[in-house]
Protein backbone atom coordinates (compact mmCIF):
# COMPACT_ATOMS: atom_id res chain seq x y z
CA UNK A 1 0.00 0.00 0.00
CA UNK A 2 2.76 2.43 0.85
CA UNK A 3 4.30 1.92 -2.57
CA UNK A 4 1.04 2.62 -4.40
CA UNK A 5 0.69 5.67 -2.19
CA UNK A 6 4.12 7.09 -2.91
CA UNK A 7 3.83 6.34 -6.63
CA UNK A 8 0.56 8.25 -6.79
CA UNK A 9 2.02 11.16 -4.85
CA UNK A 10 5.06 11.16 -7.11
CA UNK A 11 2.81 11.39 -10.13
CA UNK A 12 0.97 14.36 -8.65
CA UNK A 13 4.15 16.10 -7.48
CA UNK A 14 5.30 16.28 -11.05
CA UNK A 15 2.19 18.31 -11.94
CA UNK A 16 2.00 20.38 -8.76
CA UNK A 17 5.20 21.91 -7.47
CA UNK A 18 3.40 23.06 -4.29
CA UNK A 19 3.18 19.47 -3.04
CA UNK A 20 5.67 19.01 -0.21
CA UNK A 21 6.47 15.59 1.24
CA UNK A 22 7.51 15.80 4.89
CA UNK A 23 8.68 12.78 6.82
CA UNK A 24 9.84 12.36 10.41
CA UNK A 25 12.81 10.24 9.33
CA UNK A 26 10.69 7.35 8.13
CA UNK A 27 10.20 5.65 4.77
CA UNK A 28 13.33 3.55 4.17
CA UNK A 29 13.21 1.91 0.72
CA UNK A 30 10.12 3.88 -0.14
CA UNK A 31 10.81 7.61 -0.32
CA UNK A 32 14.19 7.44 -2.08
CA UNK A 33 12.81 7.87 -5.57
CA UNK A 34 10.60 10.79 -4.59
CA UNK A 35 13.43 12.45 -2.69
CA UNK A 36 15.75 12.09 -5.67
CA UNK A 37 13.26 13.30 -8.28
CA UNK A 38 11.84 16.18 -6.27
CA UNK A 39 14.52 17.37 -3.84
CA UNK A 40 12.84 20.78 -3.44
CA UNK A 41 9.56 19.11 -2.53
CA UNK A 42 11.01 16.63 -0.06
CA UNK A 43 11.87 17.39 3.54
CA UNK A 44 13.02 15.02 6.24
CA UNK A 45 12.36 17.07 9.35
CA UNK A 46 14.08 14.59 11.65
CA UNK A 47 12.49 12.63 14.46
CA UNK A 48 10.29 15.49 15.62
CA UNK A 49 6.70 14.79 14.65
CA UNK A 50 5.09 17.69 16.50
CA UNK A 51 7.35 20.18 14.74
CA UNK A 52 6.69 18.43 11.42
CA UNK A 53 2.96 19.10 11.70
CA UNK A 54 3.46 22.73 12.79
CA UNK A 55 5.91 23.34 9.93
CA UNK A 56 3.47 21.74 7.50
CA UNK A 57 0.63 23.96 8.71
CA UNK A 58 2.84 27.03 8.33
CA UNK A 59 3.66 25.94 4.78
CA UNK A 60 -0.03 25.40 4.01
CA UNK A 61 -0.82 28.90 5.25
CA UNK A 62 1.67 30.09 2.63
CA UNK A 63 -0.15 28.16 -0.10
CA UNK A 64 1.83 24.92 -0.11
CA UNK A 65 0.28 21.44 -0.10
CA UNK A 66 2.20 19.50 2.54
CA UNK A 67 1.95 15.79 3.31
CA UNK A 68 3.18 14.57 6.72
CA UNK A 69 4.28 10.97 6.86
CA UNK A 70 5.34 8.55 9.56
CA UNK A 71 4.04 5.48 11.42
CA UNK A 72 0.38 6.02 12.29
CA UNK A 73 0.95 5.88 16.06
CA UNK A 74 3.48 8.71 16.08
CA UNK A 75 1.65 10.52 13.29
CA UNK A 76 -1.63 10.83 15.16
CA UNK A 77 -0.81 10.47 18.84
CA UNK A 78 2.47 12.29 19.40
CA UNK A 79 1.14 15.17 17.34
CA UNK A 80 -2.51 15.19 18.35
CA UNK A 81 -2.64 18.78 19.51
CA UNK A 82 -0.67 20.02 16.51
CA UNK A 83 -3.10 18.23 14.23
CA UNK A 84 -6.01 19.72 16.15
CA UNK A 85 -4.80 23.31 16.52
CA UNK A 86 -2.29 23.87 13.72
CA UNK A 87 -4.07 21.87 11.03
CA UNK A 88 -7.80 21.51 11.75
CA UNK A 89 -8.43 24.77 13.60
CA UNK A 90 -6.59 26.66 10.84
CA UNK A 91 -8.44 24.66 8.16
CA UNK A 92 -4.94 24.18 6.76
CA UNK A 93 -4.50 22.13 3.64
CA UNK A 94 -2.28 19.52 5.32
CA UNK A 95 -2.43 15.79 4.68
CA UNK A 96 -1.66 13.52 7.61
CA UNK A 97 -0.56 10.09 6.43
CA UNK A 98 -0.09 7.25 8.90
CA UNK A 99 1.54 4.04 7.75
CA UNK A 100 1.15 0.62 9.40
CA UNK A 101 -2.45 1.16 10.52
CA UNK A 102 -3.66 -1.70 12.72
CA UNK A 103 -1.10 -4.53 12.67
CA UNK A 104 1.17 -3.30 9.87
CA UNK A 105 4.02 -3.34 12.41
CA UNK A 106 2.57 -6.21 14.41
CA UNK A 107 5.85 -7.78 15.54
CA UNK A 108 7.28 -4.46 16.70
CA UNK A 109 5.00 -4.41 19.74
CA UNK A 110 2.29 -2.21 21.18
CA UNK A 111 4.15 1.12 20.71
CA UNK A 112 3.88 0.42 16.97
CA UNK A 113 0.25 -0.72 16.87
CA UNK A 114 -1.94 2.16 15.70
CA UNK A 115 -5.29 0.95 16.98
CA UNK A 116 -6.72 4.19 18.40
CA UNK A 117 -5.87 6.49 15.49
CA UNK A 118 -9.24 6.40 13.74
CA UNK A 119 -11.09 7.01 17.00
CA UNK A 120 -9.07 10.09 17.88
CA UNK A 121 -8.88 11.55 14.37
CA UNK A 122 -12.66 11.17 14.06
CA UNK A 123 -13.26 13.66 16.85
CA UNK A 124 -11.55 16.50 15.01
CA UNK A 125 -13.72 19.02 13.16
CA UNK A 126 -12.71 19.55 9.50
CA UNK A 127 -10.92 16.19 9.38
CA UNK A 128 -11.62 13.75 6.55
CA UNK A 129 -10.49 10.16 7.20
CA UNK A 130 -9.57 7.80 4.39
CA UNK A 131 -8.78 4.16 4.93
CA UNK A 132 -8.45 2.46 1.52
CA UNK A 133 -8.89 -1.29 1.30
CA UNK A 134 -6.14 -2.34 -1.10
CA UNK A 135 -3.14 -1.04 -3.07
CA UNK A 136 -5.18 -0.13 -6.15
CA UNK A 137 -7.63 1.91 -4.18
CA UNK A 138 -4.79 3.52 -2.23
CA UNK A 139 -3.49 5.20 -5.37
CA UNK A 140 -6.92 6.63 -6.13
CA UNK A 141 -7.44 7.69 -2.50
CA UNK A 142 -4.07 9.45 -2.44
CA UNK A 143 -5.04 11.51 -5.49
CA UNK A 144 -8.46 12.32 -4.02
CA UNK A 145 -6.75 13.39 -0.82
CA UNK A 146 -4.51 15.82 -2.68
CA UNK A 147 -7.46 17.23 -4.59
CA UNK A 148 -9.48 17.87 -1.43
CA UNK A 149 -8.82 21.33 0.01
CA UNK A 150 -8.51 20.76 3.76
CA UNK A 151 -7.20 18.38 6.42
CA UNK A 152 -7.19 14.68 5.59
CA UNK A 153 -5.98 11.70 7.59
CA UNK A 154 -4.99 8.85 5.29
CA UNK A 155 -4.54 5.53 7.07
CA UNK A 156 -2.33 3.11 5.19
CA UNK A 157 -1.43 -0.50 5.80
CA UNK A 158 2.19 -1.31 5.14
CA UNK A 159 3.16 -3.52 2.27
CA UNK A 160 2.09 -6.72 0.58
CA UNK A 161 -1.64 -6.24 1.12
CA UNK A 162 -3.60 -8.41 -1.35
CA UNK A 163 -5.37 -6.69 -4.23
CA UNK A 164 -9.15 -6.58 -4.01
CA UNK A 165 -9.57 -4.41 -7.08
CA UNK A 166 -7.88 -5.66 -10.22
CA UNK A 167 -7.27 -2.10 -11.38
CA UNK A 168 -7.51 1.34 -9.89
CA UNK A 169 -11.17 1.98 -8.98
CA UNK A 170 -12.96 5.30 -9.23
CA UNK A 171 -12.68 7.02 -5.86
CA UNK A 172 -14.84 9.66 -4.36
CA UNK A 173 -14.43 10.86 -0.78
CA UNK A 174 -17.45 9.80 1.25
CA UNK A 175 -18.50 6.99 -1.06
CA UNK A 176 -18.49 3.30 -0.23
CA UNK A 177 -19.22 0.25 -2.33
CA UNK A 178 -20.84 -3.16 -2.09
CA UNK A 179 -18.11 -5.66 -2.93
CA UNK A 180 -20.31 -8.72 -2.67
CA UNK A 181 -24.10 -8.98 -2.49
CA UNK A 182 -25.83 -11.11 0.13
CA UNK A 183 -29.09 -10.92 2.02
CA UNK A 184 -28.58 -12.76 5.32
CA UNK A 185 -26.05 -10.57 7.06
CA UNK A 186 -23.85 -7.63 6.08
CA UNK A 187 -20.33 -6.72 7.09
CA UNK A 188 -19.26 -3.10 6.78
CA UNK A 189 -15.51 -2.89 6.65
CA UNK A 190 -12.70 -0.37 6.21
CA UNK A 191 -9.00 -0.73 5.44
CA UNK A 192 -7.07 -3.72 4.07
CA UNK A 193 -8.66 -6.08 6.59
CA UNK A 194 -11.64 -6.00 4.21
CA UNK A 195 -9.89 -8.88 2.44
CA UNK A 196 -10.70 -11.04 5.50
CA UNK A 197 -14.37 -10.12 5.16
CA UNK A 198 -14.31 -11.45 1.60
CA UNK A 199 -12.70 -14.65 2.82
CA UNK A 200 -15.44 -14.96 5.47
CA UNK A 201 -18.07 -14.54 2.75
CA UNK A 202 -16.66 -17.57 0.93
CA UNK A 203 -16.67 -19.69 4.09
CA UNK A 204 -20.22 -18.67 4.95
CA UNK A 205 -21.42 -19.35 1.42
CA UNK A 206 -20.40 -23.01 1.90
CA UNK A 207 -22.71 -23.06 4.92
CA UNK A 208 -25.55 -21.46 2.99
CA UNK A 209 -25.23 -18.02 4.60
CA UNK A 210 -24.95 -15.08 2.19
CA UNK A 211 -22.73 -12.32 3.59
CA UNK A 212 -23.00 -8.91 1.98
CA UNK A 213 -19.58 -7.24 2.02
CA UNK A 214 -19.59 -3.44 2.11
CA UNK A 215 -16.39 -1.41 2.00
CA UNK A 216 -16.27 2.13 3.35
CA UNK A 217 -12.84 3.52 2.50
CA UNK A 218 -13.97 6.89 3.87
CA UNK A 219 -14.43 6.70 7.63
CA UNK A 220 -15.38 10.36 7.89
CA UNK A 221 -17.71 11.47 6.43
CA UNK A 222 -19.62 8.17 6.37
CA UNK A 223 -21.53 7.14 3.27
CA UNK A 224 -24.92 7.45 4.95
CA UNK A 225 -26.86 6.77 1.75
CA UNK A 226 -25.25 3.36 1.47
CA UNK A 227 -25.58 2.74 5.23
CA UNK A 228 -29.31 3.48 5.05
CA UNK A 229 -29.74 1.14 2.12
CA UNK A 230 -27.90 -1.72 3.84
CA UNK A 231 -29.50 -1.15 7.23
CA UNK A 232 -33.03 -1.16 5.80
CA UNK A 233 -32.43 -4.27 3.72
CA UNK A 234 -30.33 -6.58 5.87
CA UNK A 235 -31.27 -7.55 9.45
CA UNK A 236 -27.84 -8.35 10.88
CA UNK A 237 -24.82 -6.08 10.64
CA UNK A 238 -21.20 -6.51 11.57
CA UNK A 239 -18.57 -3.80 11.37
CA UNK A 240 -14.91 -4.61 10.82
CA UNK A 241 -11.83 -2.53 11.49
CA UNK A 242 -8.21 -3.25 12.34
CA UNK A 243 -8.27 -1.05 15.39
CA UNK A 244 -9.95 -0.63 18.75
CA UNK A 245 -13.70 -0.86 18.94
CA UNK A 246 -13.55 2.03 21.42
CA UNK A 247 -14.80 5.00 19.46
CA UNK A 248 -13.56 3.98 16.02
CA UNK A 249 -15.23 3.06 12.75
CA UNK A 250 -17.74 0.59 14.20
CA UNK A 251 -18.73 3.05 16.91
CA UNK A 252 -19.41 5.67 14.27
CA UNK A 253 -21.73 3.33 12.40
CA UNK A 254 -23.46 2.14 15.61
CA UNK A 255 -24.21 5.74 16.58
CA UNK A 256 -25.45 6.49 13.12
CA UNK A 257 -27.91 3.57 12.99
CA UNK A 258 -29.21 4.23 16.50
CA UNK A 259 -29.87 7.89 15.85
CA UNK A 260 -31.27 7.23 12.40
CA UNK A 261 -33.85 4.90 13.94
CA UNK A 262 -32.79 1.91 11.89
CA UNK A 263 -33.68 -1.15 13.92
CA UNK A 264 -31.52 -4.20 13.37
CA UNK A 265 -31.97 -7.72 14.66
CA UNK A 266 -28.31 -7.80 15.54
CA UNK A 267 -25.29 -5.50 15.45
CA UNK A 268 -21.73 -6.30 16.47
CA UNK A 269 -18.41 -4.47 16.17
CA UNK A 270 -15.39 -6.52 15.17
CA UNK A 271 -12.11 -4.90 16.09
CA UNK A 272 -9.50 -5.07 18.79
CA UNK A 273 -10.68 -5.10 22.42
CA UNK A 274 -10.02 -2.42 25.01
CA UNK A 275 -6.56 -3.59 25.98
CA UNK A 276 -2.98 -3.49 24.74
CA UNK A 277 -1.65 -6.35 22.66
CA UNK A 278 1.19 -7.75 24.73
CA UNK A 279 1.74 -11.13 23.11
CA UNK A 280 2.72 -10.23 19.62
CA UNK A 281 3.21 -12.07 16.35
CA UNK A 282 2.51 -11.65 12.65
CA UNK A 283 -0.46 -9.62 11.49
CA UNK A 284 -2.22 -12.85 10.52
CA UNK A 285 -1.58 -14.28 13.99
CA UNK A 286 -2.98 -11.19 15.74
CA UNK A 287 -6.00 -11.00 13.46
CA UNK A 288 -6.68 -14.64 14.33
CA UNK A 289 -6.31 -13.93 18.05
CA UNK A 290 -9.03 -11.30 17.91
CA UNK A 291 -11.33 -13.16 15.56
CA UNK A 292 -10.63 -10.74 12.75
CA UNK A 293 -9.48 -13.31 10.19
CA UNK A 294 -11.82 -14.90 7.65
CA UNK A 295 -12.59 -17.90 9.89
CA UNK A 296 -13.19 -15.75 12.97
CA UNK A 297 -15.45 -13.35 11.12
CA UNK A 298 -17.40 -16.28 9.64
CA UNK A 299 -17.85 -17.72 13.14
CA UNK A 300 -19.24 -14.47 14.54
CA UNK A 301 -21.52 -14.01 11.52
CA UNK A 302 -22.81 -17.56 11.74
CA UNK A 303 -23.47 -17.19 15.50
CA UNK A 304 -25.35 -14.00 14.84
CA UNK A 305 -27.73 -15.30 12.21
CA UNK A 306 -28.45 -18.39 14.30
CA UNK A 307 -29.09 -16.14 17.32
CA UNK A 308 -26.21 -17.64 19.25
CA UNK A 309 -24.66 -14.19 19.73
Amino acid at each position, binding site marked *: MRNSFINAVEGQAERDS*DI*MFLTADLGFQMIESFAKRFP*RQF*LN*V*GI*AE*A*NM*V*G*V*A*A*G*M*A*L*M*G*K*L*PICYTIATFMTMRTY*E*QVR*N*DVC*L*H*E*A*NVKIVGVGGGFGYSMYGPTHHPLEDMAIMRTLPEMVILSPIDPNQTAAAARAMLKH*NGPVYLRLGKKGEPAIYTKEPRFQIGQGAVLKEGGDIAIISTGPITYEALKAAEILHQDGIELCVVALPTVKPLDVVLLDEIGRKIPYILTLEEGTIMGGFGSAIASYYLERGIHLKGFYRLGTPDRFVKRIGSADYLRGQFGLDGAGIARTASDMVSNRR
Partner: protein
Amino acid sequence: MKISQRSQLPLKRGSLPQSAPLKNLPEVATQIRRDILEISYRARTGHVGSAFSIVDILVALYNGFLRFPLERPDHPDRDRFLLSKGHAVLALYVALAHRGFFRKEKLNEFVQDGSELAGHPEIQCVPGVEISSGSLGHGLSLGAGMAFAARLDKRPTRAVVLLSDGECNEGSIWEAIHFAGHHKLANLTAIVDYNKSQALGPTKDVLDLEPFADKWQSFGWAVAQVDGHDHQKMTALFKTLPLEKDKPTVIIAHTVMGKGVSFMEGDWTWHYHTPTEQHLNKGLEELNA
Protein backbone atom coordinates in the same frame (compact mmCIF):
# COMPACT_ATOMS: atom_id res chain seq x y z
CA MET B 1 -12.08 33.78 6.37
CA LYS B 2 -10.09 31.06 4.70
CA ILE B 3 -7.16 32.97 3.27
CA SER B 4 -4.96 29.91 3.26
CA GLN B 5 -6.67 28.61 0.17
CA ARG B 6 -4.37 28.28 -2.75
CA SER B 7 -6.93 29.48 -5.25
CA GLN B 8 -6.85 32.89 -3.64
CA LEU B 9 -3.20 33.47 -4.29
CA PRO B 10 -2.78 35.99 -7.07
CA LEU B 11 -0.57 34.98 -9.95
CA LYS B 12 1.30 38.23 -10.03
CA ARG B 13 3.14 39.07 -6.88
CA GLY B 14 3.72 42.77 -6.47
CA SER B 15 6.40 44.27 -4.33
CA LEU B 16 5.42 45.03 -0.76
CA PRO B 17 5.13 48.66 0.23
CA GLN B 18 7.00 49.72 3.34
CA SER B 19 4.67 50.60 6.17
CA ALA B 20 4.80 54.13 7.50
CA PRO B 21 6.49 54.64 10.85
CA LEU B 22 4.36 55.68 13.81
CA LYS B 23 4.50 59.12 15.35
CA ASN B 24 5.08 59.71 19.05
CA LEU B 25 5.76 56.14 20.09
CA PRO B 26 5.57 56.58 23.88
CA GLU B 27 2.13 58.16 23.54
CA VAL B 28 0.92 55.30 21.30
CA ALA B 29 2.19 52.74 23.83
CA THR B 30 0.45 54.52 26.69
CA GLN B 31 -2.82 54.70 24.75
CA ILE B 32 -2.60 50.97 24.04
CA ARG B 33 -2.03 50.23 27.74
CA ARG B 34 -4.98 52.45 28.74
CA ASP B 35 -7.22 50.58 26.31
CA ILE B 36 -5.99 47.17 27.51
CA LEU B 37 -6.67 48.08 31.13
CA GLU B 38 -10.15 49.46 30.44
CA ILE B 39 -11.17 46.57 28.19
CA SER B 40 -9.92 43.88 30.55
CA TYR B 41 -11.62 45.63 33.48
CA ARG B 42 -14.94 45.72 31.60
CA ALA B 43 -14.57 42.17 30.30
CA ARG B 44 -13.26 40.83 33.63
CA THR B 45 -10.35 39.02 32.05
CA GLY B 46 -6.84 38.30 33.26
CA HIS B 47 -3.46 38.25 31.45
CA VAL B 48 -3.16 42.04 31.81
CA GLY B 49 0.41 41.86 33.07
CA SER B 50 1.37 39.59 30.15
CA ALA B 51 -0.26 42.00 27.69
CA PHE B 52 1.45 45.08 29.17
CA SER B 53 4.75 43.24 28.93
CA ILE B 54 4.63 43.08 25.09
CA VAL B 55 3.08 46.47 24.27
CA ASP B 56 6.37 48.17 23.46
CA ILE B 57 7.55 45.24 21.33
CA LEU B 58 4.34 45.51 19.28
CA VAL B 59 4.73 49.28 18.94
CA ALA B 60 8.27 48.81 17.63
CA LEU B 61 7.22 46.01 15.24
CA TYR B 62 4.44 48.13 13.72
CA ASN B 63 6.70 51.18 13.60
CA GLY B 64 7.58 50.66 9.95
CA PHE B 65 9.20 47.24 10.32
CA LEU B 66 6.44 44.77 9.47
CA ARG B 67 5.30 45.10 5.84
CA PHE B 68 1.57 44.81 5.34
CA PRO B 69 -0.55 46.71 2.85
CA LEU B 70 -3.52 47.79 4.99
CA GLU B 71 -5.77 47.96 1.95
CA ARG B 72 -4.89 44.34 1.18
CA PRO B 73 -4.44 42.51 4.51
CA ASP B 74 -4.45 39.13 2.75
CA HIS B 75 -1.56 40.04 0.44
CA PRO B 76 0.23 36.71 0.02
CA ASP B 77 3.68 38.23 0.42
CA ARG B 78 2.95 40.26 3.56
CA ASP B 79 5.18 39.71 6.56
CA ARG B 80 3.61 37.29 9.01
CA PHE B 81 3.50 38.28 12.65
CA LEU B 82 2.64 35.30 14.85
CA LEU B 83 1.64 35.84 18.45
CA SER B 84 2.59 32.48 19.91
CA LYS B 85 1.88 33.64 23.47
CA GLY B 86 -1.80 33.90 22.63
CA HIS B 87 -2.86 34.81 26.16
CA ALA B 88 -1.53 38.34 25.60
CA VAL B 89 -3.81 38.82 22.60
CA LEU B 90 -5.59 41.85 23.98
CA ALA B 91 -2.38 43.81 23.40
CA LEU B 92 -2.36 42.64 19.78
CA TYR B 93 -6.04 43.44 19.16
CA VAL B 94 -5.56 46.95 20.55
CA ALA B 95 -2.30 47.49 18.67
CA LEU B 96 -3.86 46.34 15.38
CA ALA B 97 -6.86 48.61 15.91
CA HIS B 98 -4.53 51.55 16.60
CA ARG B 99 -2.56 50.70 13.47
CA GLY B 100 -5.74 50.81 11.39
CA PHE B 101 -6.27 47.10 10.69
CA PHE B 102 -9.87 47.40 11.87
CA ARG B 103 -12.10 49.96 13.57
CA LYS B 104 -11.52 50.54 17.27
CA GLU B 105 -15.20 50.09 18.18
CA LYS B 106 -14.77 46.39 17.47
CA LEU B 107 -12.58 46.14 20.58
CA ASN B 108 -15.76 46.48 22.67
CA GLU B 109 -16.70 43.00 21.49
CA PHE B 110 -13.72 41.44 23.27
CA VAL B 111 -14.84 38.09 24.82
CA GLN B 112 -18.51 39.15 24.65
CA ASP B 113 -21.19 36.59 23.76
CA GLY B 114 -21.06 35.78 20.06
CA SER B 115 -17.81 37.71 19.52
CA GLU B 116 -14.96 36.75 17.23
CA LEU B 117 -12.46 38.36 19.59
CA ALA B 118 -11.64 35.54 22.02
CA GLY B 119 -9.25 35.60 24.93
CA HIS B 120 -6.84 33.71 22.70
CA PRO B 121 -6.70 34.65 19.03
CA GLU B 122 -8.26 32.79 16.16
CA ILE B 123 -6.77 33.03 12.68
CA GLN B 124 -8.09 36.05 10.75
CA CYS B 125 -10.69 36.89 13.41
CA VAL B 126 -9.56 40.37 12.46
CA PRO B 127 -6.99 41.27 9.78
CA GLY B 128 -3.47 40.98 11.16
CA VAL B 129 -4.14 37.92 13.32
CA GLU B 130 -2.22 35.27 11.39
CA ILE B 131 -2.64 32.20 13.58
CA SER B 132 -4.86 30.68 16.19
CA SER B 133 -2.82 30.37 19.36
CA GLY B 134 -3.35 29.88 23.04
CA SER B 135 -1.82 26.50 23.59
CA LEU B 136 1.84 27.35 24.12
CA GLY B 137 4.60 25.87 22.02
CA HIS B 138 2.98 26.00 18.57
CA GLY B 139 3.90 29.34 17.01
CA LEU B 140 7.56 28.79 16.25
CA SER B 141 6.93 25.66 14.15
CA LEU B 142 4.23 27.51 12.20
CA GLY B 143 6.58 30.44 11.65
CA ALA B 144 9.38 28.11 10.59
CA GLY B 145 7.05 26.47 8.04
CA MET B 146 6.07 29.87 6.66
CA ALA B 147 9.69 31.00 6.44
CA PHE B 148 10.72 27.74 4.79
CA ALA B 149 7.93 28.00 2.19
CA ALA B 150 8.68 31.68 1.51
CA ARG B 151 12.36 30.99 0.95
CA LEU B 152 11.63 28.03 -1.28
CA ASP B 153 9.44 30.17 -3.54
CA LYS B 154 11.73 33.21 -3.33
CA ARG B 155 9.06 35.34 -1.73
CA PRO B 156 9.92 38.40 0.38
CA THR B 157 7.78 37.33 3.36
CA ARG B 158 9.44 37.34 6.75
CA ALA B 159 7.96 35.47 9.73
CA VAL B 160 8.22 37.05 13.15
CA VAL B 161 7.12 34.96 16.12
CA LEU B 162 6.59 36.43 19.56
CA LEU B 163 7.12 33.84 22.30
CA SER B 164 6.80 34.05 26.03
CA ASP B 165 9.68 32.99 28.22
CA GLY B 166 7.60 30.39 30.07
CA GLU B 167 6.56 29.03 26.69
CA CYS B 168 10.16 27.99 26.13
CA ASN B 169 9.57 25.21 28.69
CA GLU B 170 7.71 23.40 25.89
CA GLY B 171 9.69 20.73 24.06
CA SER B 172 8.04 21.59 20.76
CA ILE B 173 9.68 25.04 20.88
CA TRP B 174 13.07 23.35 20.99
CA GLU B 175 12.15 21.10 18.08
CA ALA B 176 11.37 24.24 16.11
CA ILE B 177 14.55 26.00 17.24
CA HIS B 178 16.54 22.94 16.17
CA PHE B 179 14.78 22.81 12.78
CA ALA B 180 15.11 26.53 12.00
CA GLY B 181 18.77 26.58 12.97
CA HIS B 182 19.55 23.54 10.85
CA HIS B 183 17.78 25.01 7.83
CA LYS B 184 19.34 28.45 8.33
CA LEU B 185 16.00 30.23 8.09
CA ALA B 186 17.26 33.80 7.98
CA ASN B 187 13.77 35.07 7.17
CA LEU B 188 12.55 33.86 10.56
CA THR B 189 12.82 35.99 13.70
CA ALA B 190 11.79 34.89 17.16
CA ILE B 191 11.27 37.51 19.84
CA VAL B 192 11.11 36.26 23.41
CA ASP B 193 9.19 38.39 25.85
CA TYR B 194 11.61 37.71 28.70
CA ASN B 195 9.72 39.15 31.64
CA LYS B 196 11.08 36.40 33.89
CA SER B 197 7.59 35.48 35.05
CA GLN B 198 5.29 32.59 34.38
CA ALA B 199 1.91 31.54 35.70
CA LEU B 200 2.94 30.22 39.10
CA GLY B 201 6.21 31.99 39.77
CA PRO B 202 9.45 33.49 38.52
CA THR B 203 10.93 31.53 35.59
CA LYS B 204 14.19 30.99 37.45
CA ASP B 205 12.30 29.12 40.17
CA VAL B 206 9.88 27.17 37.98
CA LEU B 207 12.24 25.98 35.24
CA ASP B 208 15.26 28.17 34.75
CA LEU B 209 15.97 29.14 31.14
CA GLU B 210 19.52 30.33 31.69
CA PRO B 211 21.98 30.37 30.04
CA PHE B 212 19.23 31.32 27.61
CA ALA B 213 21.18 33.16 24.90
CA ASP B 214 23.82 30.40 24.82
CA LYS B 215 21.13 27.79 24.22
CA TRP B 216 19.77 29.57 21.16
CA GLN B 217 23.27 30.24 19.90
CA SER B 218 24.26 26.60 20.21
CA PHE B 219 21.23 25.70 18.06
CA GLY B 220 22.53 27.89 15.24
CA TRP B 221 20.67 31.13 15.87
CA ALA B 222 21.99 34.69 15.86
CA VAL B 223 21.13 36.25 19.20
CA ALA B 224 20.46 39.83 20.17
CA GLN B 225 19.38 41.09 23.56
CA VAL B 226 17.48 44.33 23.94
CA ASP B 227 15.45 46.35 26.39
CA GLY B 228 11.96 45.26 25.37
CA HIS B 229 10.51 48.61 26.40
CA ASP B 230 12.91 50.83 24.43
CA HIS B 231 11.15 51.67 21.16
CA GLN B 232 14.11 53.38 19.56
CA LYS B 233 16.57 50.59 20.31
CA MET B 234 14.15 47.92 19.06
CA THR B 235 13.29 49.91 15.93
CA ALA B 236 16.99 50.26 15.17
CA LEU B 237 17.62 46.58 15.87
CA PHE B 238 14.77 45.43 13.59
CA LYS B 239 16.31 47.41 10.73
CA THR B 240 19.44 45.24 10.96
CA LEU B 241 17.58 41.91 10.57
CA PRO B 242 18.63 39.26 9.83
CA LEU B 243 21.60 39.70 12.13
CA GLU B 244 23.50 37.07 10.14
CA LYS B 245 22.63 36.25 6.56
CA ASP B 246 22.40 32.48 7.01
CA LYS B 247 20.88 32.18 10.46
CA PRO B 248 17.51 32.76 12.04
CA THR B 249 17.52 35.54 14.61
CA VAL B 250 16.25 35.51 18.15
CA ILE B 251 15.75 38.75 19.99
CA ILE B 252 15.67 38.22 23.71
CA ALA B 253 13.64 41.21 24.81
CA HIS B 254 14.14 41.95 28.48
CA THR B 255 10.81 43.13 29.73
CA VAL B 256 8.92 43.77 32.93
CA MET B 257 5.69 41.97 33.72
CA GLY B 258 2.90 44.56 33.88
CA LYS B 259 5.18 47.33 32.59
CA GLY B 260 3.66 50.80 32.90
CA VAL B 261 1.63 50.48 36.07
CA SER B 262 3.50 50.45 39.38
CA PHE B 263 1.39 47.89 41.22
CA MET B 264 1.72 45.32 38.41
CA GLU B 265 5.35 45.79 37.52
CA GLY B 266 7.46 42.72 38.18
CA ASP B 267 4.61 40.89 39.93
CA TRP B 268 4.09 37.50 38.31
CA THR B 269 0.63 37.15 39.88
CA TRP B 270 -0.62 39.64 37.27
CA HIS B 271 -0.56 36.77 34.82
CA TYR B 272 -3.96 35.91 36.28
CA HIS B 273 -5.42 38.89 38.19
CA THR B 274 -8.50 40.61 36.89
CA PRO B 275 -8.35 44.35 37.48
CA THR B 276 -10.82 45.77 40.03
CA GLU B 277 -12.28 49.28 39.83
CA GLN B 278 -9.53 50.44 42.17
CA HIS B 279 -6.87 48.93 39.93
CA LEU B 280 -8.49 50.59 36.95
CA ASN B 281 -8.55 54.04 38.51
CA LYS B 282 -5.06 53.82 39.93
CA GLY B 283 -3.72 52.39 36.67
CA LEU B 284 -5.34 55.03 34.48
CA GLU B 285 -4.13 57.74 36.84
CA GLU B 286 -0.55 56.52 36.43
CA LEU B 287 -0.87 56.08 32.69
CA ASN B 288 -2.38 59.54 32.27
CA ALA B 289 0.33 61.19 34.31
